[in-house]
């Protein structure tokens, strides 16, 4: 799984962009989006996904269940 940003709730504050250890977040059409190919859910980096921890709007950076769980490469 990766995280995704619910666009309708995003305030475009950009706080998540700077915190992402994978540079997976960028601005698109006025709000921010997470590239699921780059997102590691912060596994191996931090205790909790950084985008969700810094986001000012609750339940805006959420797990995208349409992707399989991220595996730390062996």
């Amino acid at each position, binding site marked *: 799984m990766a995280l995704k940003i619910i666009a309708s709730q995003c*305030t475009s*504050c*950009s*706080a998540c962009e700077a915190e992402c250890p994978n540079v997976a977040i960028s601005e698109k059409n006025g709000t921010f989006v997470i590239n699921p190919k780059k997102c590691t859910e912060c596994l191996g980096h931090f*205790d909790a996904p950084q985008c969700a921890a*810094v986001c000012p709007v609750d339940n805006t950076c959420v797990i995208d269940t349409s992707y399989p769980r991220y595996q730390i490469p062996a």
Partner: protein
Amino acid sequence: MHASTQQDGASAGALPTIDAVMQQVAEHKGCGTQGGSGKASCGSAAGQGDLPTEIWEKVKNHPCYSEEAHHHYARMHVAVAPACNIQCNYCNRKYDCANESRPGVVSERLTPEQAAKKVLAVASTIPQMTVLGIAGPGDPLANPAKTFKTFELISQTAPDIKLCLSTNGLALPDHVDTIARYNVDHVTITINMVDPEIGAMIYPWIFWKHKRYTGVEAAKILTDRQLQGLEMLTERGILCKVNSVMIPGVNDRHLVEVNRAVKSRGAFLHNIMPLISAPEHGTVFGLTGQRGPTAQELKALQDSCEGEMNMMRHCRQCRADAVGLLGEDRSAEFTTDKIMEMEVAYDLDGRKAYQAKVEEERVAKVAAKQEELATLAGESSDITLLVAVATKGSGLINEHFGHAKEFQVYELSTAGAKFVGHRRVDLYCQGGYGDEGSLETVIRAINDCHAVFVAKIGGCPKDDLTKAGIEPVDGYAHEFIEKSAIAWFKGYLEKVTSGALEHHPRGDAAIRQGALIVAA
């Protein structure tokens, strides 16, 4: 608008020589020793007051640090810092409405390059713009790259503009050296508590060292970092103002303790602001029905902290993209589209010449006040009362009652006239005819005042104000505020002494919570 007020100022009386006035300013013992109620707000007397010279030099043209300067000099904020690292219960970043004026709200974000261009455009259009601040809409130090890049660009192209920033303090200790390196000489820290138990009621969480902290633990980290940052700044000679939001029932009494804590760590000015809280803002406090303080509650708290240190009372709690004199907002004239089309040549000499004219006007205002004050010297009376003033700047009574978006409030006593605050109101006059509903709003906002000084006022509102017990005064149109207020007060005391008038105290007034409607 500004050109005409300048002329009004120059024609308001013969100018004494500058030397004579500076002598008077030097002799004037300042805010601290004149009034019966202790130290006045910084610069609310004529000028330097009891501030050390090196501090006075730094603040004298800074509208947010000197009450006296805010009548003459303008500031602008550039919204280059959208990210924030804490959550406050009085802030909601989700809604942005152009008609709203409160911190944390902006209409558009700027890149550092756009911000630098905007500063040049504004500085060329408004020569009395002397201060550039970064205040958000998030926290400047949660966006350090954008904030410091903006400072770098501006210090290259407009070296005469003072740089300042306003922060929640969480990241402050990490950036103090960079702040010093960019010659940022004014920093404002918002400190609402020094007790983590109280902090937990104001801050639901902070984001620090890659982790979200909540509750008392979060508030403990925040207060430690804020006070550490304050100490580090004052050690380096960087001026610090502390902002506190007064939240009745949460931190109102506690702010006296905050005042002591920040004073002992070298903050030179404390600005206690009323909570802005309404359900339509969508903030936690707005939704829980947490009320803001009344005008009397706010003034009582400010007065009780005043013995300790300088208090600021002219804060307009402006937006993170505000432009112009405090109390006005010209940001709509300088949207990104408009700036990018503007051809801007930075005229440093022209700005200096203009500011020299402003200085002459300030000196004349101080002299006029001192002269009038001298005539009060023999008077003795226990009467202290408030008056409201309609002004659009330059320290003059130069606004029509119906055009005033706010009223400035002065406390009058035999010690003189002291600025104690301002009241936002809706525009009363829209399209040239009066509107009953908004007149009531105005009366509620200045209900604690005995008189309102205006440049002009229509017959209808005049009658209604008189009925409400507020005397409309239009006999001092385009004259200096403090001089006029003192002259009027003298007349008032004479009438009371002769028995022509009976003095009654007035009631409380409301601090407006809703949106400030943009004039144009």
